[in-house]
């Protein structure tokens, strides 16, 4: 446990030593602030109650597009710099390494999301906010972030260049975003398409509905890719 904590702490440290965490945070706050301003202004003009869905949607976009940047270096850099050799000759398992990287990305995500909660508090000051819905939305973002990050970690485990890993992850993420526009006749495929689409996976959460099938799906995706990444690392010994 102490080992895992040490590994997570190091990974998290790297984000804050490099400009990545700060740049992402700045972008996230800027974009969500614009969205927040827009949604409040719109609500006032229409004399409608203010809502939190607009800013949260902007947050989701930043999380989706920044996910390749967050994950690309995780394993690819260890390989290209050779540090994987000191890491895996220390008494830590491949699973611990992969899990620690995943937990670090989730911790980073929580750090990035935390300030946006301020918008909800501002809304609550001047109107009524359904905090159940707000937390449900955050849960959705965390689950989606987890799925994307584990995908990114898996891609990073396959690459020895972080740029390659980033580009591939980015391509897959875009593909998942636009998966819906391809018309599919076959009902089974149609359903798969529905499930893969990122927007679909998140929509309900943002509206305040916890759809257990989506919950299980997103958690399974995370588990699946983390498992694959661990296996990929293990094959290193035999290749």
């Amino acid at each position, binding site marked *: 446990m*102490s*080992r895992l904590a*040490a*590994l997570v*702490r*190091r990974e998290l*440290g*790297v984000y804050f*030593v*490099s400009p990545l965490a700060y740049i992402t945070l700045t972008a996230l706050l800027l974009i969500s602030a614009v969205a927040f301003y827009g949604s409040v202004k719109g609500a006032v003009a229409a004399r409608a109650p203010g809502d939190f869905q607009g800013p949260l949607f902007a947050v989701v976009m930043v999380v989706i597009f920044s996910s390749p940047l967050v994950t690309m270096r995780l394993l690819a850099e260890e390989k290209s*710099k*050779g*540090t*994987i*050799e*000191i890491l*895996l*000759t*220390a*008494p*830590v*398992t491949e699973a611990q390494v992969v899990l620690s990287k995943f937990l670090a990305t989730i911790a980073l995500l929580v750090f990035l999301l935390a300030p946006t909660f301020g918008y909800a508090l501002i809304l609550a000051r001047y109107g009524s906010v359904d905090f159940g819905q707000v937390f449900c939305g955050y849960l959705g973002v965390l689950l989606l972030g987890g799925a994307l990050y584990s995908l990114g970690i898996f891609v990073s485990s396959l690459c020895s260049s972080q740029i390659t890993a980033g580009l591939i992850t980015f391509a897959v993420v875009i593909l998942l975003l636009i998966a819906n526009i391809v018309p599919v006749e076959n009902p089974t495929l149609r359903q798969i398409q529905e499930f893969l689409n990122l927007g679909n996976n998140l929509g309900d959460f943002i509206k305040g509905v916890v759809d257990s099938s989506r919950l299980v799906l997103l958690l399974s995706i995370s588990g699946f890719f983390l498992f694959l990444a661990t296996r990929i690392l293990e094959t*290193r*010994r*035999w290749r």
Partner: protein
Amino acid sequence: MIEVSNLTRSYPGVVAVNGISFKVEKGEIAGFLGPNGAGKSTTMRILTCFIAPTSGSATVAGFDVIRQSMDVRRRVGYLPESNPLYTEMRVEEYLHYRARIKGVAPAERAKRVDGVLERVSLTDRRRCIIQHLSKGLRQRVGIADAIVHNPEIVILDEPTIGLDPAQVREIRELIRALGKEHTVLFSSHILSEVEKVCARVLIINRGRLVEQGTPEEIANRLMKTGRVRLEIRGEGRAMKETLETVPGVARILWAQKGDLNTYVVESSDGRDVRGDLFRCCASKGWEVLELAYERLSLEDVFTLLTETVPQEAAP
């Protein structure tokens, strides 16, 4: 402490390590000597559980490197060839982190880190970011990491590569000091280095172990068997086969340059075979350009073992 038997590791198209066997006893400083690409790093990576052997077995501190990998890793300190470090961390911070993942108890951690910093004389640089350190200092950080959990065995892969002579001397002193508390296996492609530090030398070439023993033993063994250097013009392989039939000849190393063949003939039990060789050549009418008795330094032995052998092995 380290026991390797019949170890083989192949990569697609290359056999990096080919059936080597050796032992390193507790408290010994053993030097792994060989030219670049001889299979030193591969062997060390197997011993530190980074890669698995294709066949054969290795036990380190009594544990199997495949089945008891975690037990091995807890007892081994390793400095890889390229000395990879997390360069964005501070020296002290890095060593604390390494001590923690290597399972050093929290109460002892600070003491261990202070101890190893002292050991590698980095105490005054403990707050430096690793990136800002010179190569020699980074190498010391790597060595500090290798010993921070007080391992029974320390494996150092080319610890002096790329350092200036003063730094090389420092690292060499450090390795010698490490040998007092740990079993050390270190590799190098520079003979004089190994000769100065090690009690025992393992010479490896093309994935095979070609000699092992103390530097004196190896030199004596090869020098005692009288060595004759013979240079003949003509068809090399056929002549080599003929020369091998001369009584008293134990082994012939052969290098070829154009139609010029250089043979180093080893005789068994120190017998002088120059006369017999001459008569053999004369009877065949070969053009002998040189026939001389050789005194070998360990340097020559190393050169012969690692350079002449592959040419002989070539088809």
